């Protein structure tokens, strides 16, 4: 149809077109949602629990199907996802690594699935591990790593497929704040260097402000988009942004919006 569209920056990577989700038990997870994610954007989904942010992410990952409405990826259906220029990767809340496999073999797994040849796989694994600064841990087993390192392996496993769209479901939620800040900085750098389109679910206001170009604030009962919040700080961002007064002000604004969203969720 319009494969040249990939080269055009304006064409959205994901379109959520009046997609809603009603679960089998009758729970209205998501009211009809309209959302368009453009190339190179870093979008965070944030909101009180039950607002459907994970559900929305799973819809975008095609892990679940919408009850009504539809989604488009690169202006096409999901069958074309996985082709060149339309690669999708998902990072779970847990690292979900194979405990019996060394770090390098864990990272290589998605390449093994599609049968990439050994030499190519080896160099791509090495590159992915270098990007998350884990070259020294290539031969280790997951149990020999700290929680933060395991999460970095999980991210390397996503990066090794050279994704064009990276979806993350609270990937650093279980980590301590110090480790989380470091990984956020790594992620900010990586997504900028690779011009990754990213969708990121989080509970953390600071994390959302630090990473995102756009934040979708959601409300519950039913799950819906409450408002949008743009962070127009230039990227790449670093530690200096985190400590700036502007960062604090943005966090305060977002916090106010979230409070409003929580109040709206009770109705």
């Amino acid at each position, binding site marked *: 149809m319009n494969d040249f569209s990939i080269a055009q920056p304006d064409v959205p990577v994901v379109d959520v077109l009046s997609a809603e989700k009603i679960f089998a038990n009758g729970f209205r997870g998501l009211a009809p949602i309209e959302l368009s994610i453009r190339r190179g954007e870093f979008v965070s989904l944030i909101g009180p629990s039950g607002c459907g942010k994970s559900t929305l992410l799973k819809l975008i990952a095609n*892990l679940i199907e919408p009850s009504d409405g539809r989604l488009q990826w690169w202006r096409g259906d999901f069958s074309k996802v996985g082709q060149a220029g339309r690669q999708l990767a998902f990072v*779970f809340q847990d690292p*979900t690594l194979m405990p019996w*496999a060394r770090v390098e073999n864990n990272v290589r*797994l998605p390449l093994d*699935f599609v049968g990439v040849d050994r030499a190519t796989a080896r160099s791509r694994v090495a590159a992915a591990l270098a990007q998350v600064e884990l070259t020294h841990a290539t031969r280790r087993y*997951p*149990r020999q790593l700290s929680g933060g390192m395991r999460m970095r392996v999980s991210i390397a496993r996503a990066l090794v497929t050279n994704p064009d769209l990276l979806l993350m479901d609270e990937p650093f939620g279980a980590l301590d704040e110090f480790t989380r800040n470091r990984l956020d900085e790594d992620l900010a750098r990586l997504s900028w260097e690779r011009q990754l389109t990213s969708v990121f679910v989080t509970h953390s206001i600071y994390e959302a402000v630090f990473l995102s170009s756009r934040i979708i604030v959601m409300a519950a009962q039913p799950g819906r988009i409450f408002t949008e919040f743009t962070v127009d700080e230039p990227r790449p961002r670093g530690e200096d942004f985190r400590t700036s007064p502007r960062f604090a002000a943005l966090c305060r604004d977002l916090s106010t919006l979230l409070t409003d969203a929580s109040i709206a969720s009770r109705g």
Partner: protein
Amino acid sequence: MRPLMQREWFAPVVAPLVVGALLLGVWQFCCGYFQIPIYLFPAPSDIAESLMENWQPLLHALGSTLKITFAAFALATILGVLTAFLFIQSRWIEMSLLPYAVLLQVTPIVAVAPLIIILVKNTPLALTACATVIALFPIISNTTIGLRSVDPGLLAYFRMNKVGRAQTLWRLRVPSALPFFMAGLRISSGLALIGAVVAEFVAGTGGRSAGLAYEILQSGFQLDIPRMFAALLLITVTGVALFGLMVGLDRLLLGHWHDSAVKTER
């Protein structure tokens, strides 16, 4: 060089040895002091003497028992794993077959052995069959549980990547099942030996394929109690050796990743 006492292998090896030596000493002393007749309860030295004297027939008998044990163990492993793979194909297959596997397990082998020995002409084959029946169940149940105990997160990851059944089995289910399978092997190896000895007892066969159980029976008839103890000792040593072999295999296969086999640093 660290002093001997502080080496990590020292305590687990030396402590039981010391206890064993003490017990043997008390045993030897009591037999001498109370002048217990050799046909009632021989002293360790009598048993050692008998072992030296009869080493040839005893070793031959050990060979026979070992042959049955290993054949049964191998057979149980193969059949057990195949059954487990069959079970995880569908809940229906498992539901229809599992009761019979349980039936096989709960029926005492001593009760079934005579039947098997009558039905199967070839004695070693009959003995192997008895021992296999006993050793089979732990492998089936452990491997089945193992193949099902897959990390749900990893399973979701495989599904998301549209990975087929065969690849999921090979890359995910089989490695996940390995620790469970190894635990099954450990139990099964001991059971195979027990099964072989019990079957030999029931069959009571002498001749060229006579095993250690036959040695025990014969020694009992002839009131050659030291020889009886010597045969018993060989069975015990075989059991311990099998267990050690399994522990070693466990370390080899799981040592680098599984919590059960990894040393915890303090």
